[in-house]
Protein backbone atom coordinates (compact mmCIF):
# COMPACT_ATOMS: atom_id res chain seq x y z
CA UNK A 1 0.00 0.00 0.00
CA UNK A 2 1.58 3.30 -1.05
CA UNK A 3 1.46 6.34 1.19
CA UNK A 4 0.26 6.51 4.76
CA UNK A 5 -2.64 7.81 6.81
CA UNK A 6 -1.29 11.37 6.69
CA UNK A 7 -1.48 11.62 2.91
CA UNK A 8 -4.67 9.64 2.55
CA UNK A 9 -2.64 6.64 1.26
CA UNK A 10 -1.97 8.55 -1.93
CA UNK A 11 0.36 7.58 -4.70
CA UNK A 12 0.35 10.89 -6.50
CA UNK A 13 3.90 10.76 -7.79
CA UNK A 14 5.74 13.88 -8.86
CA UNK A 15 3.99 17.26 -8.72
CA UNK A 16 4.78 20.86 -9.44
CA UNK A 17 4.12 24.12 -7.64
CA UNK A 18 1.50 26.10 -9.59
CA UNK A 19 3.04 29.48 -10.43
CA UNK A 20 1.29 32.35 -12.19
CA UNK A 21 3.89 32.67 -14.99
CA UNK A 22 3.04 29.12 -16.11
CA UNK A 23 -0.72 29.30 -15.93
CA UNK A 24 -1.40 30.28 -19.56
CA UNK A 25 0.91 27.51 -20.76
CA UNK A 26 -0.79 24.93 -18.54
CA UNK A 27 -4.31 25.91 -19.54
CA UNK A 28 -3.45 25.98 -23.24
CA UNK A 29 -1.17 22.95 -23.53
CA UNK A 30 -2.61 20.80 -20.73
CA UNK A 31 0.75 19.16 -19.90
CA UNK A 32 0.71 15.72 -18.35
CA UNK A 33 1.35 16.56 -14.70
CA UNK A 34 0.21 14.30 -11.87
CA UNK A 35 -0.71 17.10 -9.51
CA UNK A 36 -0.14 20.75 -8.67
CA UNK A 37 0.57 22.23 -5.30
CA UNK A 38 -1.07 25.60 -4.70
CA UNK A 39 -0.26 28.17 -2.04
CA UNK A 40 -3.53 28.25 -0.13
CA UNK A 41 -3.32 31.96 0.74
CA UNK A 42 -3.10 32.97 -2.94
CA UNK A 43 -6.56 31.54 -3.52
CA UNK A 44 -8.29 32.84 -0.39
CA UNK A 45 -10.11 35.39 -2.52
CA UNK A 46 -13.76 36.08 -3.28
CA UNK A 47 -13.48 36.05 -7.06
CA UNK A 48 -11.67 37.40 -10.08
CA UNK A 49 -8.80 35.88 -12.00
CA UNK A 50 -7.28 33.85 -9.13
CA UNK A 51 -10.57 32.03 -8.58
CA UNK A 52 -11.27 31.46 -12.27
CA UNK A 53 -7.76 30.10 -12.82
CA UNK A 54 -8.07 27.78 -9.83
CA UNK A 55 -11.38 26.42 -11.08
CA UNK A 56 -9.97 25.74 -14.53
CA UNK A 57 -6.98 23.95 -13.02
CA UNK A 58 -9.30 21.94 -10.76
CA UNK A 59 -11.28 20.77 -13.81
CA UNK A 60 -8.18 19.01 -15.12
CA UNK A 61 -5.76 18.36 -12.30
CA UNK A 62 -5.48 17.11 -8.77
CA UNK A 63 -4.52 19.99 -6.48
CA UNK A 64 -2.83 19.76 -3.07
CA UNK A 65 -2.92 22.74 -0.73
CA UNK A 66 0.20 24.10 0.88
CA UNK A 67 -0.09 27.06 3.24
CA UNK A 68 2.25 29.80 4.35
CA UNK A 69 0.07 31.59 6.89
CA UNK A 70 -1.27 29.30 9.61
CA UNK A 71 1.79 29.86 11.81
CA UNK A 72 1.26 26.84 14.04
CA UNK A 73 4.30 27.92 16.06
CA UNK A 74 2.70 31.18 17.12
CA UNK A 75 2.80 31.75 20.89
CA UNK A 76 -0.60 33.44 20.60
CA UNK A 77 -2.36 30.54 18.89
CA UNK A 78 -3.72 30.05 15.40
CA UNK A 79 -5.96 32.69 13.87
CA UNK A 80 -9.53 31.33 13.78
CA UNK A 81 -10.49 33.54 10.83
CA UNK A 82 -7.59 32.15 8.88
CA UNK A 83 -8.61 28.63 9.74
CA UNK A 84 -12.14 29.35 8.51
CA UNK A 85 -10.83 30.66 5.19
CA UNK A 86 -8.63 27.58 4.89
CA UNK A 87 -11.53 25.26 5.59
CA UNK A 88 -13.62 26.92 2.90
CA UNK A 89 -10.84 26.48 0.35
CA UNK A 90 -10.30 22.83 1.35
CA UNK A 91 -13.97 22.12 0.63
CA UNK A 92 -13.57 23.78 -2.76
CA UNK A 93 -10.33 22.16 -3.94
CA UNK A 94 -10.93 18.71 -2.40
CA UNK A 95 -7.27 18.57 -1.57
CA UNK A 96 -6.41 15.11 -0.20
CA UNK A 97 -4.27 16.63 2.57
CA UNK A 98 -3.14 20.04 3.79
CA UNK A 99 0.34 21.22 4.74
CA UNK A 100 1.84 24.33 6.32
CA UNK A 101 5.10 25.20 8.02
CA UNK A 102 6.31 24.50 11.53
CA UNK A 103 7.16 28.13 12.20
CA UNK A 104 5.75 31.42 13.42
CA UNK A 105 5.34 34.74 11.60
CA UNK A 106 2.99 37.12 13.34
CA UNK A 107 2.62 38.63 16.77
CA UNK A 108 -0.10 40.86 18.24
CA UNK A 109 -1.94 40.90 14.90
CA UNK A 110 1.01 42.17 12.88
CA UNK A 111 2.38 39.96 10.10
CA UNK A 112 5.94 39.40 8.89
CA UNK A 113 4.85 37.33 5.87
CA UNK A 114 7.93 35.24 6.56
CA UNK A 115 8.44 31.72 7.92
CA UNK A 116 10.36 32.44 11.11
CA UNK A 117 12.21 29.74 13.07
CA UNK A 118 11.16 28.57 16.52
CA UNK A 119 13.32 27.91 19.54
CA UNK A 120 13.46 24.14 20.05
CA UNK A 121 12.10 24.06 23.58
CA UNK A 122 9.46 22.03 25.43
CA UNK A 123 7.33 25.20 25.57
CA UNK A 124 7.44 25.62 21.77
CA UNK A 125 6.62 21.91 21.34
CA UNK A 126 3.60 22.28 23.64
CA UNK A 127 2.38 25.40 21.87
CA UNK A 128 2.77 23.94 18.38
CA UNK A 129 1.05 20.71 19.44
CA UNK A 130 -1.89 22.65 20.88
CA UNK A 131 -2.20 24.73 17.70
CA UNK A 132 -1.94 21.72 15.39
CA UNK A 133 -4.63 19.91 17.36
CA UNK A 134 -6.94 22.87 16.78
CA UNK A 135 -6.15 22.81 13.05
CA UNK A 136 -6.71 19.06 12.86
CA UNK A 137 -10.01 19.43 14.67
CA UNK A 138 -11.27 21.88 12.05
CA UNK A 139 -10.02 20.25 8.86
CA UNK A 140 -11.67 17.25 7.29
CA UNK A 141 -8.39 16.08 5.72
CA UNK A 142 -5.01 15.08 7.24
CA UNK A 143 -2.60 17.84 8.20
CA UNK A 144 1.20 17.88 7.97
CA UNK A 145 3.89 20.34 9.00
CA UNK A 146 6.93 21.24 6.92
CA UNK A 147 10.42 21.89 8.28
CA UNK A 148 11.54 25.43 7.35
CA UNK A 149 15.03 26.51 6.41
CA UNK A 150 16.66 28.83 8.91
CA UNK A 151 19.52 31.29 9.27
CA UNK A 152 19.51 31.60 13.05
CA UNK A 153 19.56 29.31 16.08
CA UNK A 154 18.21 30.33 19.47
CA UNK A 155 20.13 30.25 22.70
CA UNK A 156 16.98 28.83 24.33
CA UNK A 157 16.95 25.62 22.26
CA UNK A 158 17.31 22.46 24.31
CA UNK A 159 16.99 19.95 21.44
CA UNK A 160 17.97 19.59 17.79
CA UNK A 161 15.63 20.64 15.01
CA UNK A 162 14.98 17.01 13.99
CA UNK A 163 14.12 16.08 17.57
CA UNK A 164 11.81 19.09 17.76
CA UNK A 165 10.03 18.29 14.48
CA UNK A 166 9.59 14.65 15.46
CA UNK A 167 8.38 15.50 18.96
CA UNK A 168 5.76 17.92 17.60
CA UNK A 169 4.56 15.50 14.90
CA UNK A 170 4.29 12.59 17.33
CA UNK A 171 2.58 14.49 20.14
CA UNK A 172 0.17 16.23 17.75
CA UNK A 173 -0.17 13.05 15.68
CA UNK A 174 0.25 14.80 12.36
CA UNK A 175 2.25 14.18 9.20
CA UNK A 176 5.56 15.66 8.09
CA UNK A 177 6.23 17.40 4.82
CA UNK A 178 9.94 16.81 4.59
CA UNK A 179 11.75 19.53 2.66
CA UNK A 180 15.18 18.08 1.93
CA UNK A 181 16.43 21.36 0.45
CA UNK A 182 15.51 23.15 3.68
CA UNK A 183 17.40 20.51 5.64
CA UNK A 184 20.43 21.03 3.43
CA UNK A 185 20.27 24.84 3.71
CA UNK A 186 19.93 24.72 7.50
CA UNK A 187 22.72 22.12 7.75
CA UNK A 188 25.13 24.45 5.95
CA UNK A 189 24.03 27.47 8.00
CA UNK A 190 24.23 25.71 11.35
CA UNK A 191 26.93 23.13 10.70
CA UNK A 192 25.17 19.81 11.19
CA UNK A 193 25.12 16.66 9.08
CA UNK A 194 21.92 16.68 6.99
CA UNK A 195 21.89 12.87 6.82
CA UNK A 196 21.51 12.68 10.61
CA UNK A 197 18.34 14.75 10.21
CA UNK A 198 16.89 12.64 7.39
CA UNK A 199 17.73 9.43 9.26
CA UNK A 200 16.00 10.59 12.44
CA UNK A 201 12.60 11.62 11.07
CA UNK A 202 9.93 8.92 11.55
CA UNK A 203 9.35 7.58 8.02
CA UNK A 204 5.77 6.51 8.70
CA UNK A 205 4.78 10.17 9.13
CA UNK A 206 6.29 11.57 5.93
CA UNK A 207 3.41 12.71 3.75
CA UNK A 208 5.23 14.49 1.03
CA UNK A 209 8.73 15.65 0.10
CA UNK A 210 9.83 19.06 -1.17
CA UNK A 211 12.87 19.53 -3.35
CA UNK A 212 14.21 22.91 -4.50
CA UNK A 213 17.24 24.95 -5.41
CA UNK A 214 18.89 27.61 -3.27
CA UNK A 215 21.50 30.37 -3.35
CA UNK A 216 24.87 29.95 -1.71
CA UNK A 217 26.68 33.08 -0.57
CA UNK A 218 30.12 33.31 0.94
CA UNK A 219 29.05 32.97 4.56
CA UNK A 220 25.48 31.71 4.43
CA UNK A 221 22.91 29.94 2.26
CA UNK A 222 19.48 31.37 1.44
CA UNK A 223 16.53 29.24 0.50
CA UNK A 224 15.68 31.17 -2.67
CA UNK A 225 13.99 28.46 -4.79
CA UNK A 226 15.53 30.01 -7.89
CA UNK A 227 17.91 27.28 -9.11
CA UNK A 228 17.82 23.64 -10.18
CA UNK A 229 18.22 21.06 -7.42
CA UNK A 230 21.90 20.43 -6.65
CA UNK A 231 23.48 16.99 -6.29
CA UNK A 232 23.85 16.96 -2.48
CA UNK A 233 20.12 17.70 -2.20
CA UNK A 234 19.34 14.87 -4.64
CA UNK A 235 21.45 12.61 -2.43
CA UNK A 236 19.37 13.58 0.60
CA UNK A 237 16.27 12.97 -1.45
CA UNK A 238 17.51 9.51 -2.40
CA UNK A 239 18.13 8.73 1.25
CA UNK A 240 14.67 9.97 2.23
CA UNK A 241 13.04 7.82 -0.47
CA UNK A 242 15.09 4.84 0.61
CA UNK A 243 13.71 5.20 4.13
CA UNK A 244 10.16 6.30 3.37
CA UNK A 245 9.48 4.57 0.06
CA UNK A 246 8.03 6.32 -2.99
CA UNK A 247 6.38 9.47 -1.65
CA UNK A 248 4.51 12.33 -3.35
CA UNK A 249 7.28 14.75 -4.28
CA UNK A 250 7.12 18.34 -5.30
CA UNK A 251 9.64 20.68 -6.87
CA UNK A 252 9.47 24.29 -5.66
CA UNK A 253 10.73 26.95 -8.07
CA UNK A 254 9.56 30.42 -7.02
CA UNK A 255 11.93 33.03 -8.41
CA UNK A 256 13.67 33.48 -11.77
CA UNK A 257 11.28 30.81 -12.97
CA UNK A 258 12.29 29.19 -16.28
CA UNK A 259 9.78 27.95 -18.91
CA UNK A 260 7.32 25.31 -17.77
CA UNK A 261 8.99 22.36 -19.56
CA UNK A 262 12.29 23.08 -17.87
CA UNK A 263 10.73 23.07 -14.39
CA UNK A 264 8.75 19.95 -15.21
CA UNK A 265 11.83 18.10 -16.50
CA UNK A 266 13.74 19.04 -13.34
CA UNK A 267 10.93 17.66 -11.17
CA UNK A 268 10.73 14.42 -13.13
CA UNK A 269 14.37 13.69 -12.34
CA UNK A 270 13.06 12.59 -8.94
CA UNK A 271 11.69 9.43 -10.56
CA UNK A 272 15.25 8.16 -11.03
CA UNK A 273 15.46 7.72 -7.29
CA UNK A 274 12.15 5.93 -7.11
CA UNK A 275 13.22 3.42 -9.73
CA UNK A 276 16.56 3.11 -8.03
CA UNK A 277 14.85 2.35 -4.72
CA UNK A 278 12.47 -0.10 -6.30
CA UNK A 279 15.42 -1.77 -8.01
CA UNK A 280 17.25 -2.12 -4.73
CA UNK A 281 14.20 -3.36 -2.98
CA UNK A 282 13.54 -5.99 -5.61
CA UNK A 283 17.18 -7.08 -5.60
CA UNK A 284 17.06 -7.33 -1.85
CA UNK A 285 13.85 -9.32 -2.08
Amino acid at each position, binding site marked *: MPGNRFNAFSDLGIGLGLRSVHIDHILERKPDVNWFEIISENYMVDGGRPQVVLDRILEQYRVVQHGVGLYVGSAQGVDRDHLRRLKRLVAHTRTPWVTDHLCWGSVDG*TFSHDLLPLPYTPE*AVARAVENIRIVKGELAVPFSVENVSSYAEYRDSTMTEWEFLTEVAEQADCGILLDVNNIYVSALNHGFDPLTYVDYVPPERVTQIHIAGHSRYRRFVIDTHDHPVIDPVWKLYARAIERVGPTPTLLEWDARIPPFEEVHAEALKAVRYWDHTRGRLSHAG
Partner: protein
Amino acid sequence: MPAEARLLTTQRRFFSALREPIFGDSRGRSELPDREGDVSREFVRTANELILPSALLEPVERLELYHRQYWYRLLDSLAEDFPALRRLLGDKTFWDVIESYVEHVPSRSFTLRHLGRYLGDFVDEHPALAPHPLHAADLARLEYALCEAFEAAEHPALPPAELAGTRIALQPHLRLLALRTPVDTFRHRVQAGRKTAAPRPAAQTARRFVAVFRRGLRLQVDRLPRAAFEILSAIERTGSLDQAMDEVARRTDLRRLLEAARVSAWFADWLGRGWLVRAPANPLALVKEGSTT
Protein backbone atom coordinates in the same frame (compact mmCIF):
# COMPACT_ATOMS: atom_id res chain seq x y z
CA MET B 1 10.09 34.72 33.76
CA PRO B 2 7.48 31.90 33.78
CA ALA B 3 8.40 29.29 31.17
CA GLU B 4 5.10 29.58 29.31
CA ALA B 5 5.57 33.30 28.62
CA ARG B 6 9.07 32.92 27.24
CA LEU B 7 8.07 31.96 23.70
CA LEU B 8 5.81 34.99 23.38
CA THR B 9 8.52 37.31 24.70
CA THR B 10 10.99 35.82 22.22
CA GLN B 11 8.57 36.31 19.33
CA ARG B 12 7.75 39.90 20.36
CA ARG B 13 11.42 40.85 20.65
CA PHE B 14 12.33 39.17 17.35
CA PHE B 15 9.45 40.91 15.59
CA SER B 16 10.30 44.37 17.02
CA ALA B 17 13.79 43.92 15.62
CA LEU B 18 12.41 43.09 12.17
CA ARG B 19 10.31 46.25 12.21
CA GLU B 20 13.27 48.56 12.83
CA PRO B 21 14.24 50.71 9.83
CA ILE B 22 17.07 49.36 7.68
CA PHE B 23 20.27 51.30 7.19
CA GLY B 24 23.64 51.12 5.53
CA ASP B 25 24.85 47.77 4.24
CA SER B 26 21.49 46.08 4.79
CA ARG B 27 20.14 48.12 1.89
CA GLY B 28 23.03 46.60 -0.06
CA ARG B 29 22.09 45.25 -3.43
CA SER B 30 18.46 46.39 -3.20
CA GLU B 31 17.06 49.33 -5.16
CA LEU B 32 16.57 51.30 -1.96
CA PRO B 33 18.28 54.70 -1.88
CA ASP B 34 21.20 54.97 0.56
CA ARG B 35 20.40 55.69 4.16
CA GLU B 36 23.22 56.14 6.63
CA GLY B 37 22.93 54.67 10.06
CA ASP B 38 22.99 51.40 11.91
CA VAL B 39 20.67 49.08 13.75
CA SER B 40 19.73 50.21 17.25
CA ARG B 41 21.30 49.06 20.47
CA GLU B 42 18.08 47.24 21.23
CA PHE B 43 18.46 45.28 17.96
CA VAL B 44 21.98 44.24 18.95
CA ARG B 45 20.81 43.30 22.45
CA THR B 46 17.94 41.23 21.05
CA ALA B 47 20.29 39.43 18.67
CA ASN B 48 22.88 38.69 21.34
CA GLU B 49 20.36 37.58 23.92
CA LEU B 50 18.21 35.41 21.63
CA ILE B 51 20.53 34.08 18.96
CA LEU B 52 23.71 32.01 18.91
CA PRO B 53 26.64 32.87 16.67
CA SER B 54 27.49 30.41 13.88
CA ALA B 55 30.96 29.51 12.70
CA LEU B 56 30.81 32.36 10.21
CA LEU B 57 28.16 34.82 11.44
CA GLU B 58 27.60 36.88 14.55
CA PRO B 59 24.10 36.87 16.11
CA VAL B 60 23.48 40.39 14.77
CA GLU B 61 24.35 39.29 11.24
CA ARG B 62 21.99 36.33 11.50
CA LEU B 63 19.13 38.52 12.70
CA GLU B 64 19.93 40.99 9.92
CA LEU B 65 19.26 38.29 7.31
CA TYR B 66 15.65 38.12 8.56
CA HIS B 67 15.50 41.88 8.97
CA ARG B 68 16.39 42.46 5.31
CA GLN B 69 14.08 39.74 4.14
CA TYR B 70 11.19 41.37 6.03
CA TRP B 71 11.74 44.77 4.45
CA TYR B 72 12.48 43.58 0.93
CA ARG B 73 9.42 41.36 0.87
CA LEU B 74 7.00 44.07 2.01
CA LEU B 75 8.48 46.85 -0.11
CA ASP B 76 8.66 44.67 -3.25
CA SER B 77 5.04 43.76 -2.79
CA LEU B 78 4.03 47.43 -2.66
CA ALA B 79 6.19 48.22 -5.68
CA GLU B 80 4.31 45.55 -7.60
CA ASP B 81 0.90 46.90 -6.57
CA PHE B 82 1.63 50.62 -7.18
CA PRO B 83 3.50 50.90 -10.51
CA ALA B 84 1.89 54.20 -11.55
CA LEU B 85 2.60 55.79 -8.18
CA ARG B 86 6.22 54.77 -8.61
CA ARG B 87 6.30 56.49 -11.97
CA LEU B 88 4.66 59.62 -10.55
CA LEU B 89 7.10 59.94 -7.66
CA GLY B 90 10.27 58.64 -9.28
CA ASP B 91 12.17 55.71 -7.76
CA LYS B 92 13.87 57.48 -4.87
CA THR B 93 10.80 59.29 -3.53
CA PHE B 94 8.65 56.20 -4.09
CA TRP B 95 10.94 53.98 -1.97
CA ASP B 96 11.12 56.71 0.70
CA VAL B 97 7.33 57.00 0.83
CA ILE B 98 6.59 53.27 1.02
CA GLU B 99 9.40 52.66 3.48
CA SER B 100 7.99 55.33 5.75
CA TYR B 101 4.51 53.84 5.25
CA VAL B 102 5.58 50.33 6.26
CA GLU B 103 7.37 51.79 9.29
CA HIS B 104 4.12 53.45 10.42
CA VAL B 105 1.55 50.99 9.08
CA PRO B 106 2.77 47.39 9.25
CA SER B 107 0.81 44.53 7.71
CA ARG B 108 -2.31 43.59 9.65
CA SER B 109 -3.60 41.00 7.20
CA PHE B 110 -2.69 37.40 6.40
CA THR B 111 -1.98 38.46 2.82
CA LEU B 112 0.37 41.06 1.35
CA ARG B 113 -2.36 41.93 -1.12
CA HIS B 114 -3.91 44.13 1.59
CA LEU B 115 -0.71 45.92 2.54
CA GLY B 116 -1.42 49.08 0.51
CA ARG B 117 -4.90 49.62 1.93
CA TYR B 118 -3.99 52.79 3.87
CA LEU B 119 -1.30 54.18 1.60
CA GLY B 120 -3.57 56.97 0.24
CA ASP B 121 -4.54 58.05 3.76
CA PHE B 122 -0.92 57.92 4.85
CA VAL B 123 0.21 60.22 2.05
CA ASP B 124 -2.61 62.66 2.89
CA GLU B 125 -1.43 62.69 6.50
CA HIS B 126 2.24 63.15 5.54
CA PRO B 127 2.12 65.59 2.61
CA ALA B 128 5.76 66.59 3.04
CA LEU B 129 6.87 63.14 1.84
CA ALA B 130 5.82 63.64 -1.78
CA PRO B 131 6.23 66.60 -4.14
CA HIS B 132 2.63 66.24 -5.39
CA PRO B 133 0.85 64.90 -2.33
CA LEU B 134 -2.72 65.23 -3.66
CA HIS B 135 -1.83 63.37 -6.83
CA ALA B 136 0.13 60.77 -4.92
CA ALA B 137 -2.66 60.11 -2.41
CA ASP B 138 -5.28 59.91 -5.17
CA LEU B 139 -3.15 57.58 -7.24
CA ALA B 140 -2.47 55.34 -4.24
CA ARG B 141 -6.25 55.05 -3.67
CA LEU B 142 -6.88 54.37 -7.33
CA GLU B 143 -4.24 51.64 -7.57
CA TYR B 144 -5.42 50.04 -4.35
CA ALA B 145 -9.01 50.05 -5.65
CA LEU B 146 -7.69 48.17 -8.69
CA CYS B 147 -6.03 45.58 -6.43
CA GLU B 148 -9.33 45.10 -4.59
CA ALA B 149 -11.42 44.91 -7.76
CA PHE B 150 -9.02 42.29 -9.18
CA GLU B 151 -10.00 39.65 -6.61
CA ALA B 152 -13.44 40.73 -5.38
CA ALA B 153 -16.49 38.56 -5.87
CA GLU B 154 -18.88 38.95 -8.79
CA HIS B 155 -22.54 38.52 -7.87
CA PRO B 156 -25.31 37.95 -10.43
CA ALA B 157 -26.68 41.17 -11.89
CA LEU B 158 -29.95 42.42 -10.41
CA PRO B 159 -32.92 41.63 -12.71
CA PRO B 160 -34.39 45.03 -13.76
CA ALA B 161 -37.79 44.07 -12.36
CA GLU B 162 -36.28 43.91 -8.87
CA LEU B 163 -34.81 47.39 -8.92
CA ALA B 164 -37.56 48.93 -6.82
CA GLY B 165 -38.66 47.37 -3.58
CA THR B 166 -35.67 45.04 -3.09
CA ARG B 167 -32.67 45.57 -0.85
CA ILE B 168 -29.93 46.27 -3.34
CA ALA B 169 -26.17 46.67 -3.19
CA LEU B 170 -23.30 47.52 -5.47
CA GLN B 171 -21.42 44.78 -7.29
CA PRO B 172 -18.61 43.74 -4.89
CA HIS B 173 -15.87 44.51 -7.40
CA LEU B 174 -17.18 48.03 -8.09
CA ARG B 175 -15.24 50.77 -6.27
CA LEU B 176 -16.26 54.46 -6.35
CA LEU B 177 -13.62 57.14 -5.94
CA ALA B 178 -13.82 60.94 -5.79
CA LEU B 179 -10.41 62.14 -6.96
CA ARG B 180 -8.98 65.61 -6.52
CA THR B 181 -6.56 65.21 -9.41
CA PRO B 182 -6.70 63.63 -12.90
CA VAL B 183 -4.62 60.62 -11.88
CA ASP B 184 -6.89 58.22 -13.75
CA THR B 185 -5.54 59.75 -16.97
CA PHE B 186 -1.99 59.60 -15.62
CA ARG B 187 -2.35 55.91 -14.75
CA HIS B 188 -3.87 55.16 -18.11
CA ARG B 189 -0.85 56.69 -19.85
CA VAL B 190 1.56 54.73 -17.66
CA GLN B 191 -0.28 51.53 -18.43
CA ALA B 192 -0.30 52.23 -22.15
CA GLY B 193 3.46 52.83 -22.00
CA ARG B 194 3.01 56.46 -23.05
CA LYS B 195 4.90 59.52 -21.86
CA THR B 196 3.64 61.17 -18.71
CA ALA B 197 4.00 64.86 -17.97
CA ALA B 198 4.78 66.06 -14.45
CA PRO B 199 1.47 66.78 -12.74
CA ARG B 200 0.26 70.36 -12.39
CA PRO B 201 -0.90 71.68 -9.02
CA ALA B 202 -4.46 70.48 -8.47
CA ALA B 203 -7.41 72.85 -8.24
CA GLN B 204 -9.44 71.66 -5.26
CA THR B 205 -12.78 72.43 -6.96
CA ALA B 206 -12.37 70.14 -9.94
CA ARG B 207 -13.22 66.72 -8.55
CA ARG B 208 -13.20 63.69 -10.81
CA PHE B 209 -15.50 60.80 -10.09
CA VAL B 210 -14.44 57.36 -11.19
CA ALA B 211 -15.68 53.81 -11.03
CA VAL B 212 -13.13 50.99 -10.79
CA PHE B 213 -14.59 47.61 -11.75
CA ARG B 214 -14.12 44.39 -13.69
CA ARG B 215 -15.53 43.47 -17.02
CA GLY B 216 -15.10 39.73 -17.20
CA LEU B 217 -11.62 39.47 -15.79
CA ARG B 218 -10.41 42.80 -17.17
CA LEU B 219 -10.03 45.79 -14.88
CA GLN B 220 -11.52 49.05 -16.03
CA VAL B 221 -11.58 52.63 -14.77
CA ASP B 222 -14.41 54.86 -16.04
CA ARG B 223 -15.24 58.49 -15.29
CA LEU B 224 -18.72 59.11 -13.89
CA PRO B 225 -20.86 62.26 -13.95
CA ARG B 226 -21.02 63.71 -10.45
CA ALA B 227 -24.74 63.02 -9.97
CA ALA B 228 -24.24 59.41 -11.05
CA PHE B 229 -21.44 59.02 -8.51
CA GLU B 230 -23.69 60.48 -5.78
CA ILE B 231 -26.57 58.14 -6.60
CA LEU B 232 -24.34 55.06 -6.61
CA SER B 233 -22.69 56.16 -3.36
CA ALA B 234 -26.13 56.65 -1.79
CA ILE B 235 -27.15 53.14 -2.90
CA GLU B 236 -23.98 51.78 -1.35
CA ARG B 237 -24.81 53.57 1.92
CA THR B 238 -28.55 52.92 2.13
CA GLY B 239 -29.03 49.62 0.28
CA SER B 240 -32.28 50.89 -1.24
CA LEU B 241 -33.19 52.67 -4.45
CA ASP B 242 -35.93 54.78 -2.83
CA GLN B 243 -33.82 55.92 0.07
CA ALA B 244 -30.89 56.66 -2.19
CA MET B 245 -32.99 58.80 -4.54
CA ASP B 246 -34.61 60.61 -1.59
CA GLU B 247 -31.24 61.36 -0.10
CA VAL B 248 -29.86 62.68 -3.35
CA ALA B 249 -32.99 64.73 -4.13
CA ARG B 250 -32.74 66.54 -0.77
CA ARG B 251 -29.30 67.85 -1.63
CA THR B 252 -29.62 71.31 -3.10
CA ASP B 253 -26.15 71.12 -4.61
CA LEU B 254 -27.25 68.21 -6.79
CA ARG B 255 -30.71 69.43 -7.81
CA ARG B 256 -29.63 71.22 -10.98
CA LEU B 257 -27.39 68.33 -12.02
CA LEU B 258 -30.19 65.85 -11.54
CA GLU B 259 -32.66 67.87 -13.57
CA ALA B 260 -30.32 67.83 -16.53
CA ALA B 261 -29.41 64.17 -16.14
CA ARG B 262 -30.87 61.10 -17.82
CA VAL B 263 -31.13 59.14 -14.63
CA SER B 264 -33.20 56.31 -16.11
CA ALA B 265 -30.61 55.78 -18.86
CA TRP B 266 -27.93 55.56 -16.17
CA PHE B 267 -29.84 52.86 -14.35
CA ALA B 268 -30.33 50.89 -17.55
CA ASP B 269 -26.58 51.12 -18.15
CA TRP B 270 -25.69 50.06 -14.58
CA LEU B 271 -28.09 47.12 -14.69
CA GLY B 272 -26.55 46.07 -18.01
CA ARG B 273 -23.07 46.21 -16.54
CA GLY B 274 -24.13 44.24 -13.47
CA TRP B 275 -23.22 47.12 -11.14
CA LEU B 276 -26.34 46.56 -9.04
CA VAL B 277 -26.97 43.29 -7.23
CA ARG B 278 -29.34 41.86 -4.66
CA ALA B 279 -28.19 42.78 -1.17
CA PRO B 280 -26.83 39.71 0.62
CA ALA B 281 -29.26 38.29 3.21
CA ASN B 282 -26.70 38.85 5.93
CA PRO B 283 -25.50 42.46 5.78
CA LEU B 284 -22.24 41.44 7.44
CA ALA B 285 -21.39 39.40 4.35
CA LEU B 286 -20.86 42.71 2.59
CA VAL B 287 -17.91 43.48 4.83
CA LYS B 288 -14.99 42.95 2.55
CA GLU B 289 -12.60 40.09 3.22
CA GLY B 290 -9.58 41.28 5.08
CA SER B 291 -11.18 44.34 6.62
CA THR B 292 -11.75 42.32 9.75
CA THR B 293 -8.31 40.78 9.94
